[in-house]
């Protein structure tokens, strides 16, 4: 467990650094790749809901700190994303090959919308038109990132062997 925390912590730390210093200024066809979100989704899928939520909170807090953002903003969104994807990984998404791609696609959409709503509620700049225009390219870029990031995540955090549950039929 301690080794998992160290590996996931290192992976997410570098994802935060790369996201803030490089990825945040990359614009391709109006889309902005989110390496941090993709990395978190992969970690949560491989290690479950609680691990995903804690990882999301920590990485989000670090991201908010690095760019003088509203502290807690990214942490809140990534906590929810990490927990939800972790649950999916533990249940229906288990052992499914398309789970990482499906998770990244859905979370990208929800993350963008949730960030927009939260920013609007905080009275900050929330350009809905620009966000929705860039949604499809952002999703595509995130899906492209998923392949190498998930491969790296699997190498570092080997998928858990889910023990088959005993089921007792009643009646």
């Amino acid at each position, binding site marked *: 467990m301690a080794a998992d925390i160290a590996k996931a912590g290192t992976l997410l*730390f570098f994802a*935060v*650094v*790369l996201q*803030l*210093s*490089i990825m*945040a*200024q990359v*614009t391709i066809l109006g889309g*902005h790749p989110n390496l941090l979100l993709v990395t978190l989704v992969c970690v949560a899928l491989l290690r479950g*809901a*609680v691990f995903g*939520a*804690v990882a999301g*909170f920590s990485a*989000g*807090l*670090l991201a*908010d*700190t*690095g*760019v*003088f*953002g*509203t*502290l*807690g*903003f990214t*942490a*809140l969104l990534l*906590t*929810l994303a990490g*927990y939800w994807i972790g649950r999916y990984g533990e249940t229906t998404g288990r052992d499914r090959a398309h789970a990482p791609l499906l998770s990244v696609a859905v979370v990208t959409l929800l993350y963008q919308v949730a*960030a*927009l709503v939260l*920013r609007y509620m*905080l009275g*900050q*700049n*929330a*350009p809905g038109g*620009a*966000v929705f225009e*860039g949604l499809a390219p952002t999703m595509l870029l995130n899906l492209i990132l998923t392949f190498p990031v998930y491969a790296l995540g699997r190498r570092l955090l080997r998928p858990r062997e889910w023990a088959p549950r005993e089921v007792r039929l009643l009646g």
Partner: protein
Amino acid sequence: MAGLVVLALILITISFREPTSGPLHGVQSAGATVLRPFEVAAERVARPFRDVYGYFAGLVHVKQENEKLKAQVNELRQKALLGESARAQNEEFRKQLKFVDSPLFPSDYNAVNTRIIGWRNEFDERVVIAAGRNAGIHQETPVVTNDGLVGSVTQVSPSAALVTLLTDESSAVQARDQDTGAFGVVRHGEGTGSLIVDRVTKDKLVKEGDVIVTAGTRSKQYPSLFPGNIPIGYVISVGQSDTAPFKQIQIQPFVDFSSLDAVTALITKKKNPQAP
């Protein structure tokens, strides 16, 4: 999970309501200081790749741009000759009048040249620079490039600072038309990254192609004191309607905000004048 969500909401509330000198922002500054070397390293590794991309992207419009720039050089050469003699004359008159002035750009400012190490996100027009309080930067320090005004510092830690770009919704700077002297306020326009000059009354003359520079004044509403005569952009369209009290002026900024990599923070050598 619920605990983390509540904690995040508490942090958002405190961070949002607390002044920038508060304890939570102090912790944030310390965190930014720890992250800074990693961000600088990542930026240095990525730079060659970005430069190669930028080189090929720039080739697309190079011929057309070359012709436009040649015409501009000829025009500016003539203006520079006239401007140089006017400048010398102006200096002489100031000496004779013993004119008391606010800090002048660029002679009364020390330049802190620094690199951009972080970008907030696609919603925000803010960047993090690799120099902070230790380099003499403080809140409201103006930030420029060779091309013109970039924005001002809105948050600062010992080794990094947050610069709010001129194109951000919260930015505004008092400006004037260099050719006609019409005063107004430059702020963000309708589209992302666009700028307009607001509050120019209809009796003032502003034409397409006029250069807009900082006015070097401040008001209660826009307290940041930018030095005067920093280029901001040139006018690309001027309009007015019967009902609106002000002209609708759109400008093209000289600074390319989408490809900023290094900027200069201006630290005044003189004390900024304080209003009584």
